[in-house]
């Protein structure tokens, strides 16, 4: 039995066909839906592709890169310089390719410099890179070019959507083939034990740097096209630190175990974000955080992991440890109750000062809920399996 290559031909066919159907649907979508949904979908595609390209490198190796915003920002600025409001210097496809190349080179440099750092140090350094570039650009724009922001030429929403779709497909294909190739295997072994990987003949540094740089290409390309959507950009917008954390959260939210985990995670997450932003503009961050915490506690292996466990238990009957304890049911209900309460209150009195009080109450409820969880965990009701991966 060959484990990494095709598990079975039939399954591969089903996947292939359903993917083609999804792709066809995505390609013809702008003709059916309104412009709001096209824009929304552009954002969702962007988040998915950034998450997937983050996962190419950080998923198997466990090196948590927070440089995503830097690569994205580099793409945005490439566009801002070469595709300004005053008229394009170069044709757009070329600009996107150039943005990808610049991100690739930045990835090579950063990778060569930092990939000897491990764990949290790597995360901090890569995040530092985002802030460094942001601050430098800010200084440069203020002092040298005497501006702060730049205007980028606008494009038709549908056009942006299609370009994003092309980059999206390219990202997915690259991610898929890297995962399937011996590089994917090498990355995984590096994540498991770097020293052992080096001693069985893997050029650890080269593999890490190259794949890191490849993963940067798509973020840069996405940034280049998004610049036209953003229209006005400045260093704060282009190098938004939040974009460094989003792919991490989205990938974990979806589950890193499977190829489609980060895709589903990013899609649901991006939609959820949009939904919460429009429905609860004031409680958006709070609710968002709450959802995230719930996911971490109840779905340690992400959405996909949970679905798989559900399917498995449906197929094989209840498994050992799969029956949720009373604690979990209780605290889950508690969480839902808290969520519902906050929904009603926030819906009714949007914009009033009463939010501060309500926010306080809800916070207390949530804290109480976690205290109960902790207490019960202490009493041994919760097994470690629910928290660990």
């Amino acid at each position, binding site marked *: 039995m060959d*484990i*990494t290559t095709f598990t079975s031909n039939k399954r591969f066919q089903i996947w292939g066909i359903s993917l083609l159907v999804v792709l066809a649907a995505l390609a013809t979508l702008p003709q059916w839906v309104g412009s709001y949904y096209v824009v929304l979908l552009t954002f969702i595609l962007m988040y998915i592709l950034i998450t997937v390209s983050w996962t190419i490198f950080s998923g198997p190796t466990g090196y948590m890169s927070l440089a995503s915003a830097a690569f994205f920002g580099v793409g945005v600025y490439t566009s801002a310089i070469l595709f300004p409001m005053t008229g394009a210097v170069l044709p757009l496809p070329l600009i996107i390719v150039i943005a990808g190349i610049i991100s690739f080179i930045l990835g090579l440099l950063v990778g060569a410099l930092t990939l000897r750092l491990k764990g949290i140090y790597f995360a901090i350094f890569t995040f530092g890179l985002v802030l460094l570039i942001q601050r430098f650009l800010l200084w440069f724009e203020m002092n040298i070019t005497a501006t702060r922001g730049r205007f980028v030429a606008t494009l038709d929403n549908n056009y942006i959507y299609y370009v994003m779709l092309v980059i999206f497909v390219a990202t997915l294909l690259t991610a898929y083939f890297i995962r399937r190739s011996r590089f994917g295997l090498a990355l995984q072994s590096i994540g*498991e*034990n770097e*020293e052992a990987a*080096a*001693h*069985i003949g893997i*050029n650890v540094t080269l593999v890490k740097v190259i794949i890191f740089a490849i993963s940067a290409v798509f973020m840069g390309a996405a940034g280049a096209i998004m610049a036209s959507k953003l229209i006005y950009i400045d260093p704060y917008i282009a190098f938004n630190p939040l974009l460094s954390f989003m792919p991490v959260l989205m990938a974990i939210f979806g589950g890193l175990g499977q190829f489609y985990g980060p895709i589903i995670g990013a899609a649901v997450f991006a939609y959820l974000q949009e939904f919460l932003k429009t429905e609860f503009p004031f409680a958006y961050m709070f609710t968002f955080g709450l959802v995230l915490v719930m996911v971490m506690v109840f779905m340690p292996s992400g959405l996909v992991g949970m679905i798989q466990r559900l399917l498995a238990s449906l197929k094989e009957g209840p498994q050992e440890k799969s029956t949720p304890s009373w604690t979990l049911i209780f605290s889950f209900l508690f969480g839902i109750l808290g969520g519902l309460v906050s929904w009603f209150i926030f819906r009714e009195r949007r914009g009033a000062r009463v939010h501060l009080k309500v926010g306080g109450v809800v916070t207390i409820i949530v804290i109480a809920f976690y205290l109960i969880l902790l207490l019960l965990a202490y009493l041994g009701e919760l097994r470690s399996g629910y928290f660990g991966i």
Partner: protein
Amino acid sequence: MPRGVPREINVRILEGEGVTKYFGGLAAVSNVDFHVDEGEIVGLIGPNGAGKTTLFNLISASLVPKPGVIKFKGENITGKKPYQICRMGVARTFQMVKIFTNMPVLENVRLGSFFGTLPGMSSADIAREAAELLEFVGLSAMSATPAKDLTLANQKRLEVARALATRPELLLLDELMAGLNATEMAQAMELVKRIRDKGITIVMIEHVMKAIMSVCERIIVLHHGEKIAEGTPREIANSKKVVEVYLGEQADAGS
């Protein structure tokens, strides 16, 4: 017990000249000269902290000797990278087993063939070779098991199989017997001999005297980073200096 396969010429597969490694002010390995002949099983012994694993790390390029020169098949390999050393034909195992725990057993071995050898092997060849190696170390039945679910003895076998998958000419075994019970140890000793019979030269670090005495043809003794003795098992067992610094009470316990 046959003492080694007949050899016409003694070709030095591995040589070290004045190999030294300081950690801060402490000489972990100090001015050690050594050589290993093709087809030999050489034992490397010494009390804890003698510098045995450091010497292995120097040979396999985890560390770089300073000063000192290490030659593999006459070529100076000092300063090369671990993956280069591996592809040249030096494989190793680790004192604390370092397998890829979340991968299936077969995958661990396949990785060795994929990267440890020169490119050009088809995946069918690699799969066949991996299956053969699992058979060789006795893990065929567990090829789909995640490596973390193996017993320690089997994990050590897996590590050996993964090292062999890189097609080494020289295999460095770091405490293969540690933590094994009597039966497993006997199997491991058997395995070491079978690897030698394949024509692979072996250097092994070992604390279990019984194993070292019965398997090795030559033994090098380190103490405080220095080589204090070298010779056949009998010579070592009878060397006053060695008994003084190292064997001590273990001499009766082991033999």
